[in-house]
């Protein structure tokens, strides 16, 4: 076993073990959590980059070039393995990068406290484990670790609402993970394996009763993940969770938790079941496409009517993940490539957008669409970055949002699924509807015009959501002293906007990097 093989295990175990350090140090010192979290995420990011170099520099079939760590030295099919292949390494990079970026916000923007950073590291470790695990039951365990971290972080918000949102998520999320576990049980009955690679080899050859078991397993697994990915009508936990989580937590949860769950669904569909199995199962692909398409329409429509910006972006996530799930269901190589690109792109854009929302709430005191009036004039940098990210979300080139949607649309046309092609067109229109509403407020409505909505007559219209009294200088110094907008926060938001645009030119790079994975998925080759 060479040194690189140890890396996947270290990436998972490191953050989880170090999550105990802030709590322990907290017994003696007050504010060490941030430094520990920064050190750990820096290490994780460096490790992820090294892993990516190693995986993407190799040539060959997907499984051959993957870096595989067998936990405890037990080889598959009995042991558990961590697999960093061309697909999971991309997700690992996204998780590590986003976790690092969000820290730039939480240093000053809060929430503070050592226990918060323990939860933070636990969540990062769980997400990395979920991305790399090669065992379906181990996936359940990581799903629950991610869940526990998420519930704890959401409930670290100030108001009592956050505890209620976290409990709602806990109950729905646990039921979802349990339904997934039933699916795992059916797969185990059918094949006697839990290892994904072994399952993938076994499932195409199943017959009779065992085939029925595997199909039932697929149904349970899909429904379980539909809850975790927040597909309509199982999305009801998500808007509350995103809205009531602290501003420093929402970017992490919105960008990563659902993204990694959607990745896990893709991994199960294409590595474990394989395109042929899904195509041969009656109605399976049709159900997946329909759930995705309905989520796109329902999510976008609900987003248009929201007044709270965080809630609006949360419903937008429902619709964007609908697009990804629908692309999975199309079962063509182009659509799968589009789904993966959109997965990464959406994670990046949502991280940037929610960070911008946090920065605006801190520095401008605005949380509703109406309160964003005049933002561009008073906070040009953050407004500019947010505008770029919003436009990228609509899918206007050049941006990562465009190439993701483009590949999915091409895949839909190749599969002759006019329903999905139409839904993509309609969803772009609806996305434009809520994005344009926000842009219009930010750039074309003068600030004085909004005095009415949250009638704080007097000096400044800021509803004083988080920061307290605001001064025109942009540095808010109020009741919660010290919470102000730092250069670091603005830099991260601007950097995300730049990356979202630059990646808009990277369609070929993604195609090349992901080629081994796409080939292994047993899909129709594009004509």
């Amino acid at each position, binding site marked *: 076993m060479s040194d690189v093989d140890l890396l996947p295990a270290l990436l998972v175990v490191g953050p989880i073990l170090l999550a105990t350090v802030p709590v322990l140090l907290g017994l003696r010192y007050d504010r060490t959590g941030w430094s520990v979290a920064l050190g750990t995420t820096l290490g994780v990011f460096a490790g992820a980059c090294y892993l990516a170099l190693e995986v993407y520099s190799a040539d060959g079939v997907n499984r051959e070039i993957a870096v595989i760590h067998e936990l405890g030295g037990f080889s598959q099919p009995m042991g558990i393995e961590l697999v960093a292949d061309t697909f999971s390494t991309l997700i690992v990079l996204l998780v590590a990068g986003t976790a690092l970026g969000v820290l730039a916000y939480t240093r000053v923007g809060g929430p503070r406290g050592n226990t918060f950073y323990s939860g933070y590291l636990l969540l990062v470790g769980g997400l990395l484990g979920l991305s790399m695990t090669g065992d379906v039951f181990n996936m*359940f365990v990581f799903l629950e670790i991610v869940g526990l971290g998420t519930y704890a972080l959401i409930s670290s918000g100030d108001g009592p609402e956050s505890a209620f949102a976290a409990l709602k998520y*806990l*109950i729905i999320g646990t*039921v979802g993970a349990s339904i997934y576990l039933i699916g795992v049980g059916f797969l185990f009955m059918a094949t006697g394996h839990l290892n994904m690679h072994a399952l993938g080899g076994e499932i195409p050859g199943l017959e009779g009763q065992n085939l029925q078991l595997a199909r039932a397993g697929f149904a349970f697994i899909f429904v379980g993940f539909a809850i975790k990915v927040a597909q309509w009508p199982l999305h009801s936990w998500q808007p509350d969770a995103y809205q009531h989580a602290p501003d420093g937590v929402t970017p992490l949860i919105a960008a990563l938790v659902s993204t990694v769950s959607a990745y896990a669904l893709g991994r199960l569909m294409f590595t474990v079941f394989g395109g042929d199995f899904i195509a041969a199962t009656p109605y399976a692909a049709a159900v997946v496409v329909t759930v995705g398409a309905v989520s796109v329409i329902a999510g976008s429509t609900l987003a248009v009517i929201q007044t709270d910006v965080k809630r609006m972006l949360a419903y937008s996530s429902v619709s964007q993940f609908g697009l990804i799930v629908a692309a999975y269901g199309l079962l063509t190589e182009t659509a799968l490539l589009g789904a993966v690109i959109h997965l990464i792109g959406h994670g990046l854009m949502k991280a940037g957008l929610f960070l911008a929302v946090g920065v605006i709430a801190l520095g401008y005191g605005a949380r509703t669409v109406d309160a964003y009036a005049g933002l561009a004039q008073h906070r040009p940098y953050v407004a500019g970055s947010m505008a770029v990210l919003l436009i990228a979300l609509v899918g206007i080139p050049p941006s990562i949002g465009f190439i993701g949607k483009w590949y999915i649309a091409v895949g839909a046309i190749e599969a002759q699924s006019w329903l999905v092609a139409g839904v993509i067109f309609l969803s772009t229109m609806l996305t434009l509807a809520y994005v344009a509403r926000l842009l219009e407020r930010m750039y074309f409505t003068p600030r004085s015009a909004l005095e009415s909505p949250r009638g704080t007559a007097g000096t400044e219209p800021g509803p004083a959501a988080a920061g307290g009294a605001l001064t025109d200088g942009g540095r808010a110094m109020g009741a919660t002293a010290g919470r102000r907008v730092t250069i670091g926060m603005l830099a991260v938001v601007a950097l995300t906007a730049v990356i979202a645009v630059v990646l808009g030119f990277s369609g070929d790079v993604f195609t090349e990097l992901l080629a081994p994975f796409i080939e292994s998925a047993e899909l129709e080759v594009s004509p």
Partner: protein
Amino acid sequence: MIELLATRYAYALMFVLLGIGLYMVIASENLVKKLIGVNLFQTAIFLFFVAVAYVEVDGEPGGSPVVPATTEPAAGDLILASPLPHVIVLTAIVVGIALTAVGLALIVRIHAEYGTLREDTLREVRADE
């Protein structure tokens, strides 16, 4: 039908428990009862895995041997029970306990903030604020 129930009663029981658990999660207004419902739901799945591990050999009930000790078992060879389902249940129990603990902690906080555990009352209180 009766024969099916007599031989596969564990699976039937599992679906009954799943149903009761899910019904409690949806219908009960009390948050603690909702959490108990989640627990029942998970317990049904533990039962499912234990039932999966129980395999009849040549129509003889009583053992759960699925993994032979050697790769090519001869007639009189030692046959071992597959440890995997039991390990899964053990792990899932631990995960379930952690989730219940977090859930109860959240419920304690909700009770401290709102003074009630009933969801309908909570809805009224939150609507007033």
